[in-house]
Structure formats: C-alpha cells, structure tokens
C-alpha cells in the first residue's frame, strides 16, 4: 500500500507540468462571462466614456517601434482627459494568441484592446471572443467604408465586423534592383515563367549554388499560398471539409517549386532561424530575390547597400494575380465590461484614424489602409518617399482576405511541413501531395 502511494505520488509529480499546460484546474461548464456578451444598441450615448479609466493594449510591435508607439499613445492621451493607455508587448503573434486564449478561458486578465494576426480573425469571430463592432460603428458614425474593401472583409467573420484592419501588409518579391539592371531582367508576371527567369538570375556551378534566384519561405505557407490560388487551387473546397491540394493544378505548382530547389535556383527555407537566414542572404547578395512580407520593406532598405526593388508576386496564366492580406487587425475582447469596451473603442477609432494610419505607414513597412489616403495627394506623397510601394498601389484590389476556416492553423502546419519534407527530403511530389491532402481532410472533417 505504501509503495502504491509512493508510485502515485511520483507519477502525480510527473504530471504537474502536464496539467498546467493542458488547462487543468480551470472552468466549469460555462466559463464566467464578466461583461455583456454583445453590445447591440446603436445609441451613441451608450458608447461614451464618462469616468476616468486606464485600459490595457496588447500588441506585438517590437523594440524598434517603441518610439513611434509611445508617440501615438502620448498624442491620444493628450487628445482627451479620461482614458490612459497601458501598452504591453506580448511577444510574437502566436505568443500573443496563446496569452489571449488563456485569459479568455480564465475569464479574467483580458486586455481592453489587442491586435491579432489576420488568420486569427476566423477563430476569434467564430468563438465569440471578439466583440461585434457593427453597433459601435453605426452608433458613433465611424467611416469604415474608407478602408480598402478586401482589408475590411479580412477583418470580418460571418459578415460581422469583429475587428478593423490595422497594420496591413501583403506578399511581395524583394529583388536586388542593381543586379536586375545589370542583368537586364524584370520579375515575371506569370508563375509559369519563373523557372526560366530563375535560371537566368541564379548562378549554379557544377551543382553548387553560388547565388540563388530566390528563396521560398517554408516557415509560413502564406508566402507560397498565392502561387496555388492563382493557378486555380482552392486549398479548402466549398464544402469546408476537404482540400484540393492533391489536384493536378496543385501538384503542378508543387512540382515547379521543387524543380527550382532541385536545380539550385532556389531553396525552401525552414527551421527556427529561417527568416533571419533568408534576410541575411538577401542583404549579403547571396540571392537575387526573396519572397517576403511588404511590412519588412524599411528593414531591407536600411540594411542593404544596393537598391531594393519590390515587385508583385507572379500570378497565374489566366491573368489572375491575387495576393492575400497579412499583418494584423485590432479587436476588442467581448468578455470585458461595457465601460472598458467603450474606452477601447475610443482608442481604436484614434488608432484607425487617417492621420495615425499615415504615421504607421511611414514609420513602419506597413501600408496605408484608407482609400482617402491611397487615392489622393497624400498617397502620392507617400509614394515619393517609398516608390517601391507602387506595385502594391497598382494592385490594391487584388489583395484578398485570408481563407477562413476554424481548422486553418492546423491545415497550414500540415501543408508547410508536407512541402518542406517533399522538397528537402526529395520525395515524390504526387504521392506526397496525396498523403498530405488525406491528412488535411481528416483534420477538416474532425472539427
């Protein structure tokens, strides 16, 4: 008996870490809801802030943005007397997501306002975690129609405006413009022309690559996702329960990317330091181009000793050249009390204002999101400072919302792992894609 007790004690101690990370000791059947679930009133007085209040803002802006962040907060606090902001850096998007989920489950410790990477909008909207902002917009007359249509849609779930676009980016090709001039080349407009193009700009001697044509980020499927979308692959079928990543079109795209890598024209970047390694390879001139997010434009320009060019991602043969929205949105957790939500809405309106939007766009690599900026003289002034953004301005209507499916995160992980394994381990493309799709279908059906 004593021995059994000893074994139980030992095993229980073993489990302490497990129970901590698997949510032990938490809720009842219905976790406590502190505030009203949804504010439905469209009376402006219901959204006023009447008492002094300090609200918390969870964000993922790193140290280089601290001055800009403080400047914006100081301006907001100076603009009114009642609301003070406690801005807290919560790490990367995924770390912020984990902290939000934990606070949501605990029913306390939620921020008044937070940013979220665009793919999380579906999860937050579906779960009711994010407040429906439609009544706020209607009651306070906030002009949401001034946002680009695709951007606004990306911040919706099931037709409800559960967030607003904040720091928006999209996928682009960065290239060494000096090198391009020297070689007399331009980034092709079609994906099918890429293999020939990459063979011209890369240098491969006796099977050893001295300069890559491009680098495909394999740590996030977002970067190669548009190649599939523009070539007729839906990724998630209309039934929401299956994928067409085993279709002929999808296999063709995967085969082409693998061919680039097999020939030494490109490499598929994976691992914990893949992003840093890719960035450094471009800065060092070890690659002609990279596929990356437009938000990192300032970093490349500051660190490269050559002219940095930015081009739209090559599209499909039928002229399709869609891209997908990246960056983050702002949302208000629905569980907060109404006074906190009202203060958060005041702050959100300030952050989303046209003036602040330009401030973010100029101080970071994110793009202007307001039509009243994009299509006016202010937009032209922005382009004079950052001419490389012309390719984005030319294709604003092509920027689409992300695919919204509650199982998306899981699907994306299987997809990028499958691509990495197929390319880096030199596996058969057709069978790899079929196997991967089967796994994705199981996940979609399991939800």
């Amino acid at each position, binding site marked *: 008996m004593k*021995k*059994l007790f*000893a*074994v*139980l004690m*030992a*095993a*229980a*101690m*073993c*489990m*302490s*870490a*497990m*129970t*901590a*990370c*698997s*949510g*032990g*000791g*938490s809720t009842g*059947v*219905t*976790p406590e*809801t502190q505030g009203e679930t949804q504010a439905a009133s469209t009376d402006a007085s219901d959204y006023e802030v009447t008492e002094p209040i300090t609200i918390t803002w969870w964000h993922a802006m790193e140290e280089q943005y601290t001055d800009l962040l403080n400047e914006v907060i100081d301006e907001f606090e100076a603009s009114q007397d009642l609301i003070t902001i406690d801005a807290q850096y919560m790490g990367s998007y*995924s770390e912020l997501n*984990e902290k*939000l*989920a*934990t606070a*949501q*489950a605990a029913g306390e410790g939620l921020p008044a306002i937070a940013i979220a990477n665009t793919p999380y909008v579906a*999860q*937050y909207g579906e*779960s*009711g*975690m994010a407040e429906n902002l439609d009544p706020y917009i209607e009651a306070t007359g906030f002009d949401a129609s001034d946002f680009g249509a695709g951007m606004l849609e990306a911040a919706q779930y099931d037709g409800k405006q559960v967030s607003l676009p904040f720091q928006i980016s999209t996928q682009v090709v960065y290239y060494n413009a000096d090198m391009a001039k020297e070689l007399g080349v331009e980034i092709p407009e079609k994906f099918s022309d890429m293999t020939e193009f990459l063979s011209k700009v890369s240098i491969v001697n006796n099977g050893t690559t001295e300069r890559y044509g491009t680098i495909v980020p394999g740590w996030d499927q977002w970067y190669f996702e548009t190649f599939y979308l523009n070539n007729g692959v839906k990724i998630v079928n209309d039934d929401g329960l299956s994928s067409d990543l085993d279709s002929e079109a999808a296999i063709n795209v995967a085969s082409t990317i693998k061919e680039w890598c097999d020939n030494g024209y490109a490499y598929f970047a*994976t*691992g*914990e*330091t893949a992003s840093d*390694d890719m960035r*450094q*390879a471009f800065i060092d001139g070890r690659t002609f181009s990279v596929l990356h997010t437009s938000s990192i434009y300032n970093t490349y320009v500051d660190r490269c000793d050559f002219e940095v060019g930015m081009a739209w991602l090559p599209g499909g043969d039928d002229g399709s050249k869609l891209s997908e929205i990246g960056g983050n949105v702002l949302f208000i957790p629905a569980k907060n009390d109404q006074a906190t939500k009202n203060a958060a809405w005041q702050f959100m309106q300030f952050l989303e204002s046209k003036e602040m939007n330009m401030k973010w766009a100029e101080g970071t690599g994110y793009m202007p999101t307001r039509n009243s900026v994009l299509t006016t003289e202010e937009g032209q002034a922005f382009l004079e400072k950052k001419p490389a953004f012309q390719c984005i301005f030319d294709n604003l209507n092509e920027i689409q919302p992300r695919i919204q499916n509650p199982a998306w*995160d*899981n699907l994306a*992980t299987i997809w990028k*792992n499958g691509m*990495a*394994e197929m390319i*880096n*381990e030199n596996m058969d493309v057709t069978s790899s894609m079929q196997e991967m799709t089967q*796994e994705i279908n*199981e*996940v979609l059906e*399991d939800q």
Partner: protein
Amino acid sequence: MSNSKTAAPPAGARKRRKSTSAWLDFLCVLPALAFLLVFIYYPIVDLVRISFTDWNLIKPQYNYVGFDNWIWLFTGSGTKYLLNSLKVTVLYTAGELAVTIIGGIIFALIFNRMTKFFGTMRAIVFVPKYVAMSSAAVIFLWIFNKNTGILNHFLGILGIAPVDWLGDRNIALLSVLMLTGWRAIGYGMMIYLSAMMGISKDYYEAASLDGANAFQRFKSITLPLLSPTTLFLFVTTFISAMKVFQSVDILTSGGPYRSTEVLVYLVYQYAMRDFRIDRAATIAIVFFILLLIFTAATMKVSNKNVHYDS
C-alpha cells in the same frame, strides 16, 4: 517492581498519546497535502473530465461528448501523432538517460581526485546545470545554425561539409540531446561523486590485497554500491526527460517533419495552438498512465537489484 509500575503509563494513556501524536503528525503534513490536492490531484481528476468534453479553449461553452476524443486518439487521425510522439519521447529519454548515467559515471571517475585543479574542472562541468534552459537553447540555436553557426565553422576548418543540425530529420533529435547532455552530464557526475565518497575505503583495500585490479574493483565494488544512486538518477532523469519541452520548443518547434515532436509538445500544440483542450487532456492522461506503469515497474525491479549496504 513498584517503581517500574509507576514509571510505565497505563495502556489507555499510551494509546491516547499515540493518537494525539498521530493527529499532530497529520496536522503538520496538512498544508502540503492540501497543496497536492488542489494543484496536483484535482487537475488530474479534472483532466479526465475534460477528456470527455469538446472544450475549445476560446469558446465560452462546451458539451460532454462521451468517448469521442478517445476514439479520435486510438482509432482516428490522432493515433499516428500519438505513436510518433511516443517514439520520439522514448528515443529522447533513452538518450538523456545514457548521457546522465553513463556520462555521469565516466566523468565522476575522471574527476574523482580531490585537488584544486580537479575541483575547478568539476565546477566547470557542473555550471551548465545552472544556466536557464531557455538561455542555453537560444545560444545553441546560434551554435547549430547551418550557415553561420560556430559548429559548422569548425567542421569547415576540418574539411567537413556543413551539417543541418536542426533541419535534418535524422540529426535534429541528436542536436537537442547535445544541449541536454551539455547541461545534464555535470549533474550526473556530481551525484555519482558524492555517492563514491560514501563508499568505505575498506572495501577497496581488501580487494587490492586480494589482487583485484582497478577494473575489477570498479565492477565488483563501485558499480554495485552505486546502484541506489543509479536508481535515483534513472527515475528522476526518466521523469524529467519524458517531460522535455523547452529545449524542443526553442530549438525545433517539434520539427523538422515532427521528428522532435515529443509528447509534451504534442499536448502543448493541441492545447495552445489549436485550442483543443479536450484532445490535449486525452493525450495527457495516456501520458500519465504510461508514467505510472513505468514508475511502478521500476520500483519493483529495483527491489532485487539495488544494494543499500555501502
């Protein structure tokens, strides 16, 4: 006779004193017991309950779904992930046990000399244990970098092609174990050293007089008398190795291609990335049962093979 009668308390009083003492003992352990009940046993019981729900961490409500999660784990898409993680965890645990126990004994034998130089060397070997795993893992992330890491730089000097330490599925787990070994080997050494000092010199003198050489003395005296220490290291290292998380999270995030996805990381993925607390709880219970069986088996085996007479 009369004196002894007055000295011995009556049986009833002895019984009362014993009973009072037992209550006092119980009161003394009560705070610890309460702590265990609230923070260890209740969460374990709650895990079982959660495994019968469909609880998504960010949703406000959940339902009881019977054995759905268990069916998913043992006959659905969860099976292959569980089996893969079990395999990875067992391999990692075997590696850490080997490093801690075999490496620990070897280092203890090398450094078992009470001079200033060897004292300094012991400290150098032991110090990594005090470096936080998160800090050490970030440094190893740089060391292992395929393009800019110092390890490949040295290999290059020797004319060896760069190795993808964290990106090659056949090497990644070994790389994680290298970090573990760097931290654990000094700990194993110190535990064995302290045990070696407790072995009476008489045994060695007697064996020498009988003509035993150094290896025979080690095999027939040191090793058997270190068996309680080995058991202690085996059980504690096994449990900590099965729970490995931080180094995997920082170095590989379970990749490449799930080749370092240990059990705790799998639980973490379901709980914190997919928000499927229900599935995470189901896997955690399986893990708990496995540890329980192993701990019981180890204790049973240890009764026959551990010598406590040093």
